[in-house]
């Protein structure tokens, strides 16, 4: 417990990464976005968000004041930190129910939710499951959440703006050579963004070639592959908590040998990079910036 408090940021970083892989590892993109919530009767007024990216989306469409509870990892924008917590990886269904939400936002690929969210849905609490396995899905998520909160106009504007920025990045990158890259979400055991993930979109649309793009999901990589694969660039999520863990892996751990050790390192702010919300487009831009000669 002491350790958990002492290294709070590190833990948050790691937790976010873990959440990300847990939530997205079993993604079945073939199913498409069939989120299972009934059409809104009236805008939701009491909203609980079970993931930090969803919290950010709610704030970004201007409905932050509707949030009555958020997941432990929701720390952005700063106002989110002051909201009641409902748990981290294992959220408490009872705690959520006691907040009397009229909408629960959950991550759920292909529209399916697990754990507490599915229990809540079964007991009649409206749950909106949001899939974010691509940047297109992130934009769609913004529109859908906006619609449920009666903020369709704001959401559309936000999504259009983000999409325009993305197109500009893609256009600029089209002319450049595409360095071969991987995006490591965790150093030990080394785990990277594979195909059919929003981070694969970030990496390739920013102008790099994801060496793992042909392998869907979040593969854990062998030391041998990392030492010998033609990796030119390694993109790392960066946070005060993350950095020492990556540094250890690069100095003596599984990232200390061969090609990965010699690769160019690009660090991108962890909380914007690894959360499929509005700020992932900031990360896209700053990665593209770093990749341009």
């Amino acid at each position: 417990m002491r350790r958990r408090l002492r290294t709070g940021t590190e833990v948050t970083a790691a937790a976010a990464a873990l959440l990300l892989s847990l939530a997205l590892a079993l993604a079945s993109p073939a199913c498409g976005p069939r989120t299972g919530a009934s059409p809104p009767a009236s805008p939701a007024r009491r909203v609980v968000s079970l993931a930090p990216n969803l919290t950010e989306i709610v704030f970004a469409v201007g409905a932050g004041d509707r949030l009555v509870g958020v997941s432990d990892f929701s720390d952005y924008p700063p106002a989110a930190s002051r909201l009641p917590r409902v748990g981290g990886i294992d959220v408490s269904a009872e705690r959520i129910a006691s907040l009397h939400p009229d909408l629960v936002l959950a991550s759920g690929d292909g529209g399916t939710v697990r754990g507490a969210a599915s229990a809540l849905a079964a007991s009649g609490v409206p749950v909106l499951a949001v899939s974010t396995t691509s940047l297109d899905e992130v934009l769609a998520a913004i529109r859908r959440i906006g619609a449920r909160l009666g903020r369709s106009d704001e959401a559309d504007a936000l999504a259009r703006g983000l999409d325009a920025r993305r197109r500009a990045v893609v256009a600029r990158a089209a002319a450049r050579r595409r360095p071969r890259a991987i995006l490591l979400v965790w150093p030990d055991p080394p785990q990277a963004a594979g195909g059919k993930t929003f981070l694969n979109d970030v990496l390739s649309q920013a102008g790099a070639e994801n060496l793992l793009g042909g392998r869907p999901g979040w593969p854990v990589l062998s030391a041998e592959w990392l030492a010998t694969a033609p990796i030119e660039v390694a993109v790392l999520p960066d946070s005060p908590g993350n950095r020492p863990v990556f540094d250890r892996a690069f100095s003596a751990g599984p990232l200390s040998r061969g090609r990965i050790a010699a690769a160019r390192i690009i660090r991108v702010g962890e909380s914007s990079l690894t959360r499929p919300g509005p700020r992932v487009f900031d990360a896209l831009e700053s990665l593209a910036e770093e990749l341009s000669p």
Partner: protein
Amino acid sequence: MKGGRPALWVGAGLLLAACVLCGLAVGGVRLSIADLVSGTGPAGQEARLIASLRFPRVLLAALVGGSLALAGASLQALLKNPLADPFLLGTSGGAAAGAALATLAGISPLLSPGAAFAGAAVSSAAVASLARRGGRLDLQRLLLAGLIANAFFSAVLLGVFSLASTEAARTMLFWMMGSLADASPAKLAALLPYAIAGAAVLLLSASRLNLFAVGEENAAALGVHTERSKALVFLASSLLTGAAVAFAGVIGFVGLLVPHAARAVAGNDQRVLLPLSAIVGAALLVAADAASRAAAAPSELPIGAVTAAIGAPLFAWLLLRNP
């Protein structure tokens, strides 16, 4: 009988050598032996790099496989039970819980074999005392006690996971599934004393274990101080299991299957069976590790999944062959 079966030992040696060569040659990336031996420039450099990654790993696999098989063979003879195995008796579970608790407490990973050994020893002692009835080890109770121990230590592990920082939990999760991925000379050096001490005790106990294989009373009637011998063998197999689990996670089937296979080939003289099991166990795990690297490149399969995939059908075949 010792040294009387050169063909057996030559065969076992060749099997191990073949598996080690295979373990060095096979993996997620191609390693050219020609480049490794005589290569210059980038090709040679890369070959040497891969070899330097693979070599400690092959050694670790051999050490872990040999330790588990030797511990399994010894427990089977000691308890006169072909189903005895560090995994089934809860020794591995105790070791895993010990190592996980040490990680939770922030003890250096190189010290965790000590904690794993302590966990394994506690588990062995608890299982053995639960299985005693009327001053004797009851075999049905023994397997049930192993089951209970496994259930208990799984609960401890889950508790540790939930209390640990997410970072630690993540690392532990991969370790639990069985992985030789972070083999390094330093870890080998840390494992070696445990393996040597445990193996020495068990190999020197082989003749006593022959008497135990007929029955504990049999050993006592032939002059063996059975309580002392049992404690020693439990301790030594805990040492081997603890070290193996601390560095490679929970790997099933090796301790159960390898002694069976070795016994089918070489009979049940522990003076032959124990060293033969160690060699075959080493070979099996080296081969399984090579398969785990090659099958899912650039990722690796958990080694425990590979041993189970190889082990379960083989075990079934052995059962059908010797009813």
